[in-house]
């Protein structure tokens, strides 16, 4: 290998990214005795300084509303004044005409797991064999039976609170005690029952009891600002310290990957990166490379990894690299209030800022074509005594009566957020912008994306059902969002390095190993065929565990 002649150290594995996928790969590989070099595009966070989850609004310069001069660039609720400077705003991406994609990226060590929403449901055969059921697209190259043991291990490592629910759409797992239902949950559950909609404890990676050496949650409610005691799963609290303990991990921060380097046979043999602090170009060498930079960024780096072997990007003989981009449509399907609770004392029902409950997919379960759309969506209900009384807009007037109304309505607001997956489409993909480069000279990624008709039908359906649930629960609706959130908002993009059995139509095999380059793996949501009606993090962890152990086995057999 060229690296040997350049007298640089050759690591067993270079892992690009340290979030859900990278963290899992790093820990698994280092614990197996392999030497690991982790490259992370941003800095390391210091919990005491960077996690301002216990600050009150009046502790913040702009009271938590954010600096008006930069507010327009915010990626949404998670990119707020409490986590200033943590979400990525320096590195450019572009969107094709007609595409409105918002791309919240967290390049701090641990990535988005520092601030994620924590909902953690398993994918099931209803997802893996969806094509068989409804005739759209292709099945996943993996069955639930194969991946189930990895989900069990992921749950044991993360700590997931929930209950066994026997839902056909949602395989059950191994759970910590669930979070308790609040007043609003019991009331909305009664409304759901009258409509045949399930209303159950969510699966949430938040510790209701001490677990694996981590303390239980104290329900302060600042989770979106990061947890300073590590009471919910994140890569820096749960995985990276274990990897460091092995002595097999070296981490470079502010190391922005430019491309995967190849040897004379076209195999991966390292990564070129730019040090964001010194702006120096560096090269590092490894016997294998794992891409865990997040769905779009892994595809971006691979598309930029052009050589005589891979003229359109590494491991792209299929032409599928960057294609098949899917996302979750998010939006407020309905919101309103529960008059039963008017004038009741405040109650700590919003403090976990968590998905205490969910309405798991109930559509198209027995007959895949029962509804006007195929597949299905889930809904997260929420509400209660929030930090800021945003509902004041719905209350008329001023003076003592207005002030009293704000107090009376305080425990009553409720809302429903839909999570609806798109279907793969030839028109939703990423490629390299031929003209734009980022400040480090890397050709920028360009995103092409539109909501599809099937997903928009789910959105309309969810608005009707959720309004009906509010009415049946004795509540009043204030309305629904005029539009869904922008594409990208959910952080759940999938598919840009899709896995499959056929090297002509997929980038990786069922182990996340690229068909073309046997020592190059993809371990993030890019390998998923779509995003289903569940969130992605626990599946990234389960699939990465399996991929990492496959890679370890290849090392043992001397094949790498």
């Amino acid at each position, binding site marked *: 290998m060229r690296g040997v002649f350049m007298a640089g150290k050759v690591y067993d594995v270079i892992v690009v990214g340290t979030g859900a996928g990278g963290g899992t790969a790093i820990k698994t590989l280092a614990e197996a005795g392999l030497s690991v070099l982790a490259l992370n595009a941003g800095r390391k966070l210091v919990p005491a300084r960077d996690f301002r989850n216990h600050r009150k609004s009046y502790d913040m310069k702009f009271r938590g509303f954010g600096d008006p001069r930069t507010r327009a660039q915010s990626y949404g609720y998670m990119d707020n004044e409490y986590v200033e400077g943590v979400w990525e705003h320096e590195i450019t991406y572009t969107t094709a005409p007609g595409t409105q994609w918002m791309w919240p990226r967290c390049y701090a060590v641990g990535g988005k797991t520092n601030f994620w929403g924590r909902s953690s449901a398993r994918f099931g055969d209803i997802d893996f064999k969806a094509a068989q059921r409804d005739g759209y697209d292709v099945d996943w190259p993996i069955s639930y039976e194969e991946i189930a043991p990895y989900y069990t291990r992921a749950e044991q490592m993360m700590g997931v609170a929930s209950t066994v629910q026997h839902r056909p759409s949602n395989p059950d797992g191994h759970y910590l005690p669930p979070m308790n239902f609040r007043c609003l949950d019991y009331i909305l559950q009664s409304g759901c029952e009258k409509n045949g909609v399930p209303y159950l404890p969510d699966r949430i990676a938040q510790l209701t009891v001490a677990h694996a050496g981590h303390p239980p949650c104290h329900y302060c409610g600042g989770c979106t600002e990061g947890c300073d005691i590590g009471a919910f799963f994140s890569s820096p609290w749960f995985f990276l310290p274990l990897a460091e303990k092995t002595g097999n991990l070296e981490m470079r921060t502010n190391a922005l990957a430019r491309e995967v380097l190849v040897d004379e046979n076209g195999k991966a043999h390292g990564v070129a990166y730019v040090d964001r602090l010194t702006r120096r170009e560096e090269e590092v060498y490894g016997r294998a490379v794992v891409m865990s930079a997040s769905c779009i960024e892994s595809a971006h780096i691979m598309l930029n990894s052009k050589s005589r072997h891979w003229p359109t990007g590494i491991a792209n003989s299929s032409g599928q690299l960057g294609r098949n981009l899917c996302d979750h449509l998010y939006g407020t399907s309905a919101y309103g209030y529960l008059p039963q609770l008017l004038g*009741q004392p405040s109650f700590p029902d*919003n*403090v976990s800022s968590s998905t205490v409950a969910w309405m798991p997919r109930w559509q198209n379960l027995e007959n895949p074509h029962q509804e006007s759309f195929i597949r299905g969506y889930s809904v997260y209900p929420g509400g209660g005594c929030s*930090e800021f009384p945003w509902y004041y807009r719905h209350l008329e007037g001023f003076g003592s009566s207005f002030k009293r109304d704000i107090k009376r309505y305080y425990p009553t607001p409720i809302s429903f957020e839909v999570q609806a997956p798109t279907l793969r489409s030839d028109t939703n993909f990423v490629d390299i912008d031929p003209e734009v480069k980022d400040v480090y000279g890397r050709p920028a990624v360009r995103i092409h994306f539109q909501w599809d008709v099937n997903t928009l039908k789910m959105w309309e359906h969810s608005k009707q059902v959720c309004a009906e649930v509010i009415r049946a629960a004795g509540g009043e609706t204030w309305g629904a969002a005029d539009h869904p959130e922008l594409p990208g908002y959910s952080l759940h993009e999938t598919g840009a390095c899709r896995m499959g059995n056929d090297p002509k139509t997929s980038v990786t095999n069922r182990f996340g190993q690229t068909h073309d380059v046997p020592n190059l793996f993809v371990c993030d949501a890019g390998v998923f065929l779509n995003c289903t009606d569940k969130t992605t993090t626990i599946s990234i962890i389960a699939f990465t565990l399996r991929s990492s152990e496959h890679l370890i086995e290849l090392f043992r057999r001397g094949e790498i």
Partner: protein
Amino acid sequence: MAGQGMDRREVLRCLALAAAAGTFPGFSRWSFACGDHVNAGAPTPRAANYTMQFFSRHEYATVERLADLIIPGDGTPGARDAGVAEFIDFMVAHDDSIQYPFRLGLAWIDAESERLDGSRFLDRPAEKQAEMLGHLAYRDRYRSGEEDGRAFFELAREYTVMGYYTSPIGLKELDYPGLRLYSESPGCPHKDDPEHLHLPPPKF
């Protein structure tokens, strides 16, 4: 574990606040670093010491009066006690997009007041001030030709709510239950009444 960490975090929080509060102006009343822990009483009004960042003295006094009418001190402290005018001055000074609407709206209020009674808004008796706002605030009392005034009133109301309910006083008024420590996830105390049709009579 959470309990043990509390002191350390509280100390850090207070230190950070003390450092930050010194660096930006306009915080005499609304950045009570650790007010609810170490400072038992209500904050002392310091309007005389306050230096406006955006508004003129007259504009500032009008904003303060409007905020006080929108969220009055009645049984509990109001916008004036919570330093809402300082908050609004600070936010407007940092936000180009609302400078013109505030300045124009305040001018409208005085012009309309003079048109009606020949006196500026602040010179009207309190009940006449409230009466004027009533036409901007309640749909069934709207008057034609006051569209600009209604838009400004909604803006002033928005910033008053923002300033009041993010202050220590406002959070106490709501009895905001977050950012405290709980030993288990707080659950509904009325499980025998899932639809909550038989709750105790409203407290507020």
